[in-house]
């Protein structure tokens, strides 16, 4: 008859023994054991004598009344508990509804946030792309400026070198040619190679002007003053002449063609028979641009 597992001092229910149980709960739960006690006795008193005795003394009726009362207690307890359970369930249901409502709001808000986040991300990506592009542009500009500055610095360095007399071992035209050849093989030449004609012409114009200016300084004549080509090709005096200066110029200009680059050819190779296109008389204004044109034409860069 004992349908409950025995409890021990470690059982969880011992934790609530210190609180007063509600009466209807005690009547409800305990009534089962009361009714069971009476039922057990009732079942054992089925003999003729016992039935007569219980009927005569009224104990049978009283026992049945006790069983009935316990059952009523049980039903009442069930009703109370069921009512409270139902109320509790209703409360739980309303709570679930409220949770669902809040969940819907939260879902909506999360969706809004997700859109906001995605939009922000897109904007950030666009900003990043724009910034990268701008940075690239700036970087290119910086590179270009740096390139230009290095080209200008080389131009400056070469003409400083010329004005300092470093090329004095060459003839007047040879100095101009040597300076331009150094520029052509250096950063200045690279700069002219990678830039379009418009930018290149600006630089080459500067180069021609500075060469004219330096030539006139070295020759101590006016830029427009024409002189015989022997003047321009005349070797310097023995004091400043290096033994292999003529060979060096010849080596530098061995690529030239008397027809296509008559100035370069004539100045570097010093042929006895000068090309037909090479003038007999020339001024600085003619010599310098002619060399620029032959050395820095797009074709030979």
């Amino acid at each position, binding site marked *: *008859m*004992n349908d*409950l597992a*025995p*409890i*021990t*001092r470690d*059982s*969880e*229910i*011992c*934790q*609530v*023994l*210190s*609180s*007063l*149980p*509600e*009466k209807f*709960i*005690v*009547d*409800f*739960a*305990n009534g*089962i*054991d*009361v009714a*069971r*006690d*009476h039922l*057990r*006795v*009732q079942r*054992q008193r089925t003999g003729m004598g016992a039935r007569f005795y219980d009927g*005569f*003394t009224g*104990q049978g009726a*009283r*026992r049945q009344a*006790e069983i009935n*009362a316990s059952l009523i207690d049980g039903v009442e307890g069930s009703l109370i*508990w069921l009512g*409270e*359970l139902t109320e*509790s369930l209703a*409360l*739980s249901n309303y*709570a679930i509804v*409220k949770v669902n409502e*809040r969940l819907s*709001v*939260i879902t909506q*808000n999360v969706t*809004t*946030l997700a*859109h*906001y986040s995605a*939009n922000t991300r897109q904007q950030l990506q666009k900003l990043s792309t724009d910034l990268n592009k701008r940075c690239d542009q700036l970087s290119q500009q910086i590179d270009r400026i740096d390139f230009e500055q290095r080209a200008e610095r080389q131009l400056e360095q070469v003409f400083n070198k010329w004005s300092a007399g470093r090329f004095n071992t060459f003839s007047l035209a040879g100095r101009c040619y040597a300076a331009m050849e150094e520029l052509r093989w250096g950063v200045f030449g690279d700069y002219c190679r990678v830039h379009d004609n418009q930018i290149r012409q600006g630089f080459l114009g500067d180069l021609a002007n500075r060469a004219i200016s330096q030539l006139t300084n070295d020759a101590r004549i006016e830029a427009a003053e024409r002189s015989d080509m022997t003047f321009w090709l005349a070797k310097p005096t023995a004091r400043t002449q290096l033994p292999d200066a003529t060979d060096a110029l010849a080596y530098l200009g061995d690529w030239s063609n008397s027809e296509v680059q008559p100035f370069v050819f004539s100045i570097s190779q010093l042929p006895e028979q000068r090309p037909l296109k090479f003038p007999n008389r020339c001024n600085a204004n003619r010599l310098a641009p002619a060399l620029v044109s032959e050395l820095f034409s797009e074709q030979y860069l």
Partner: protein
Amino acid sequence: MSDMKVGLVLSGGGAKGAYHVGVVKALHEVGAQVDAVAGASIGALNGAILAAAPSLQEGAVRLETLWMDLANTSPLKFNFPAYIQLLAASGLHLAGASVLNEIVQKAQHIAGGAMPAGISNFLGGLNDGALSDTPLQNHINRYLDQDALNSGLPLFISVFKHNHALRDLLRCAVAELGIVDSAASEFIHIQSLPLLEQKEALLASAAIPLLFAPKKINDTLYSDGAQGGWQKMQGNTPITPLLEAGCNMVIVTHLSDGSLWSRHDFPDATILEIRPQSNISREGLVPDVLGFHAEKIPSWIEQGYVDTMHCVGRVMKASKARVELKASEAAVVKSQDTARIDQEMQITMRRIVSLQ
């Protein structure tokens, strides 16, 4: 809850009082508190030992010691029913050996000749002294220390106003037949009595008519409290004084199968009954009450323990479920207070929307 006041009713039933040992032991193990005790007959004696004990645990130990001593007493040394021995050791004087002899003879017949041979001859020379000098007496004297009892749990006992032994028994028989109920038992608060009368009152509650002489309390003779209000076991199940003392939870023990005591007579009280979930009777009414077979005592102790665990466990499981339901409801209600956070979310979302 701190305002819980628990009363324990230990009903009468002679040697079946061993059942109380298991009850008290189980109540201690499930962590129950007991704030007042009421007892009838053997329930009064057990209740007194419990009330005088410093704790429920110690009370359980003392009761078990006493009853196991009784169970282990050699039947060759004392050929007396265990309950008679216990009462005699407690100080009750036999009313007359001849009466006991007659009772034992009848009981022997009912028990199917289970009593040792020659007991009738022994009973012929019986006197009170033969029953008083037992080791049980030492236990009882120690456990029923009057100072401890007076500073212990409130103890109420039921006593029945003595008229005449045979007449009292006859009235019980008439009540048993459902003709006229016996007069109600009276309830006495032991600690309110003068010291000298306290033990007399305890013994009066257990003084089985004919076997033991009634006791005089406040110039009135009283005997076994179980006799009063026979039909509804009013005297044998003294719950009323505990309710009057303010107990809001009463644990009631029964020492008979299918006791007709009714919890429904106390509609306002919260009552937890510990009823036998299997037959408590072993050999029949008289042998069980008088304790002809002391070896049955451990089985009653065990049954009291198991039944208490069962009955209390069932109530406490239901109660725990209720407590958890209420707690979860409160938690649900509390968790619904989200107005502030919801408002904060709305404000934040409005800001976000305005930024888009």
